[in-house]
């Protein structure tokens, strides 16, 4: 295995070189006389001539030596520890240096520079150092995996640097950085924007899930609709988000002006027409010349889209507003209650489901499961009705306009609708693919054994398609976190507010303030969904 990765850890060598290069050549910190003026950059070696900070550079070189250690187990842990330390110290040490830098701020700038409220900005060497540290850590983790380390060990190895960093962050050690100063002053707003962002993604994903799975199922079942549905959701994806906001603006504004009773009547009538058309055209299919058959299908599909779309627009927007008001208008205890309920549902479903399988005879477990589900659903409904009540805010039915439900040309309505539309492609496509990939022989044997179509769907098709559907959900969820940031342009709020403001005023710290929570949200969301996928997928079909 000469030259193979068993002898040396090339990844870590790369990481080490990247970090060392960054510390040697790139500026570590930037000090500005105030938040917006241009500042002076400081290299690692220039910090007050203090050799303490050279340690960071030396630490960056350490993996170069470790990487050639041939005992893989020892090398793995040495690299993991160095990588984590590198991440941790790259954050901590410059912060210490920055304190000295700020103290001597007057001496740094030219005579006559107005120094009011000088700020310390993290500069490129810190980013490169973190990247290098992470690459070293990654190399070490690969060795650990090759050594067949347990899950707990791997988890510990991959996270203790981050845990230490979070600890010093909470402890205030990093408060010197400008991004933290911004956080201090905007923390409350940040929390609110974060919640908005989260609820945007949550509601869009939930709505997309219902619509997407329904459409995916339809496409998988009905050959005539297959192409229409897959094309339709594909086209949505190609529309740039800004254009989609623009397209939605006018109709939503118009819709907002209508009174609820008018729209409701229109909804009922259009629904009746669409359903009638759908069935009549479906029945007379065989009597029509084959040339116009596809058009009848498309016509009935479009007719059906009108009432269903209307219902969804109002439902999703109103649902979003209701959930939002539960989050925003309630105090912490209520939010904790909500989280607790969600947790209880998941635990109850999982734990009791497993034990139901094992101990077939225990009836009270079944009773308990349904009780928990019923109580949780009831509480959630009450909370949502409360939220909904706050949105409507005491309007009577005669006075109620669609705008009172939250539908308007700009703001949350177009944003949440656009997000829902964007989530459709991965959801529909993966549902369709997942269902189509189920071995027909398995379905045939289910039919032959006397399962009803419903039993075949819930006991065979859904569990087998689940990993692929779940991949679509994860895909949709992560991209929604990104797209939700754009929604800020039409005044929908969320973390995009900080990013937009940062771009407009060219202040990196504001951009970071919006971007970091979004990234964290995406990572946490993905990890949670991955966990859920693992728990809900049968071991019989999990990847090994």
């Amino acid at each position, binding site marked *: 295995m000469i030259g193979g990765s068993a002898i040396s850890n090339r990844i870590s060598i790369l990481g080490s070189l990247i970090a060392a290069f960054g510390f040697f050549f790139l500026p570590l910190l930037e000090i500005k006389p105030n938040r917006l003026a241009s500042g002076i950059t400081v290299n690692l070696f220039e910090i007050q001539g203090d050799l303490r900070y050279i340690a960071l550079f030396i630490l960056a070189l350490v993996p170069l030596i470790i990487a050639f250690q041939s005992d893989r187990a020892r090398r793995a842990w040495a690299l993991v520890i160095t990588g984590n330390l590198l991440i941790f110290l790259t954050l901590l040490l410059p912060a210490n240096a920055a304190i000295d830098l700020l103290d001597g701020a007057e001496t740094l700038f030219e005579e006559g520079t107005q120094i009011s409220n000088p700020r310390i900005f993290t500069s490129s060497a810190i980013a490169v150092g973190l990247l290098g540290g992470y690459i070293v850590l990654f190399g070490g983790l690969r060795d650990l995996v090759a050594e067949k380390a347990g899950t707990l060990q791997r988890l510990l190895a991959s996270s203790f640097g981050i845990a230490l960093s979070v600890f010093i962050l909470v402890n205030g050690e990093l408060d010197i950085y400008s991004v933290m100063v911004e956080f201090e002053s905007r923390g409350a707003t940040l929390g609110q924007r974060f919640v908005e962002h989260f609820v945007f993604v949550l509601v869009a994903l939930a709505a997309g899930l219902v619509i997407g799975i329904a459409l995916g199922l339809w496409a998988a079942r009905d050959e005539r609709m297959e192409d229409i549905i897959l094309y339709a959701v594909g086209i949505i994806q190609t529309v740039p988000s800004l254009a989609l906001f623009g397209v939605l603006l006018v109709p939503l504004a118009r819709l907002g002006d209508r009174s609820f009773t008018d729209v409701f009547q229109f909804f009922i009538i259009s629904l009746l027409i669409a359903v009638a058309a759908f069935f009549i055209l479906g029945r007379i299919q065989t009597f029509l010349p084959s040339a116009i058959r596809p058009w009848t299908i498309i016509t009935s599909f479009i007719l059906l889209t009108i009432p269903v779309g209307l219902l969804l627009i109002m439902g999703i927007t109103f649902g979003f507003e209701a959930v939002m008001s539960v989050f925003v208008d309630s105090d912490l205890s209520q939010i904790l209650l909500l989280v607790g309920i969600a947790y209880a549902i998941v635990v109850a479903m999982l734990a009791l489901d497993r034990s139901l399988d094992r101990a077939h005879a225990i009836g009270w477990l079944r009773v308990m499961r349904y009780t928990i589900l019923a109580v949780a659903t009831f509480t959630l409904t009450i909370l949502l009705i409360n939220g909904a009540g706050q949105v409507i805010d005491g309007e009577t039915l005669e006075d109620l306009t669609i705008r009172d439900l939250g539908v308007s040309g700009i703001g949350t309505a177009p944003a949440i609708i656009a997000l829902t539309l964007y989530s459709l492609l991965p959801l529909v496509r993966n549902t369709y693919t997942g269902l189509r990939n189920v071995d027909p*022989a*398995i379905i045939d044997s289910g039919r032959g054994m006397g*399962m009803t179509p419903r039993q075949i769907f819930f006991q065979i098709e859904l569990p087998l398609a689940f990993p692929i559907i779940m991949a679509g959900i994860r895909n949709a969820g992560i991209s929604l976190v990104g797209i939700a940031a754009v929604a800020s342009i039409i005044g929908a709020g969320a973390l995009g507010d900080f990013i937009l403001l940062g771009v407009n005023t060219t202040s990196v710290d504001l951009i970071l303030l919006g971007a970091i929570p979004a990234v964290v949200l995406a990572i946490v969301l993905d990890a949670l969904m991955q966990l859920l996928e693992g728990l809900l997928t049968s071991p019989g079909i999990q990847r090994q």
Partner: protein
Amino acid sequence: MIEFKNVVKQYPNGFRAVDSLNLQVHEGEICVLIGPSGCGKTTSMRMINRLISITSGEILIDGQPNNELPVEELRRQIGYAIQQIGLLPHMTVSDNIAIVPKLLRWDTDRIQKRVDELLDLVGLDPDITRDKFPRQLSGGQQQRVGVARALGADPPIMLMDEPFGAVDPITREVLQAEFLQIQERVGKTIIFVTHDIDEAIKMGDRIAIMREGRLVQYDTPDTILAHPINRFVRDFVGTDRTLKRLGLVKIRNLMTTEPPYCTMDSTSEEASQCFVDYSASSIFIVDKDDHTLKGWVDKEELKGNTSLLDAMYEAHWVDIAVREDATAREALSAMVARGFRITPVVDRHGKLVGTLTLKALQDLASYDPDAIIPENNGVSG
């Protein structure tokens, strides 16, 4: 009993997959449907549990038309095993077998007991297999679970569509033999679809040969081999049908039961007397206690030797005898290979029980089948 009455399956494009099929499958028998691909054998089978609808005619199960029950209820009363096995990969072996009992709402204790019982029946250790997932099993084990699942709710009727198709030839033979043993115990009425004539001959109590949606010949394997009704059947069963017929008959039914023999400790005078008594040119030598075959001696050899042991050709019975439960085809093969015109027949412990002549085999091959009584149609005991 299953009865097809003028059953037709016609597709919208006018193609008749099954054309006025009349067929009676008797209680407790294995009826093999066979024919070239596209002959309608699988379609016919799938019309029994209405996986495919009937265009006209009817299928009676114990006198009742099969479209009287709700379709799911009907299917739950009919075992179903297919070539691709169709085990649900996300369920454990035990859950797979329990599918139909669960659909029928058996209570959990009963289901668990039934699962273990069935795993035992198909030769899998319940404690080891129960909680495994299908992908953790070999192909042969999966097929066994497939059979166990079809037997799940103890249905009186089973439909099997090439149930042993997905395994290697050696495993297939083992599974076939095992299944015949199971069938001896459970006595189901079975429709068995295959395209392999050897499998049909081995498994079938009766074989229905189909062609282009029509039934060509429906008879016992022996009759079909001896009297193919037309050229199509003759070609289909193959040019070696004589050998195949021999494969249906056990030696036990062909041998003469009084073999010429004397024991090892006989003197040469006693042995000479044997030749006179049996008027044979060779006699077999057996152990004096358990009558295990030890070899043989020719008349000519004995004359030149003083002792029986010196004159005797000594060999292990495995090398010179055939077993009584072997088929005539196996005996023929052994005799041709060894150059014997007459072969000793032993039981499974090597005890001499009879002799079989080449002439008896020839007679059988060219013989009217009605006179032969094939033992249990080739079911190995």
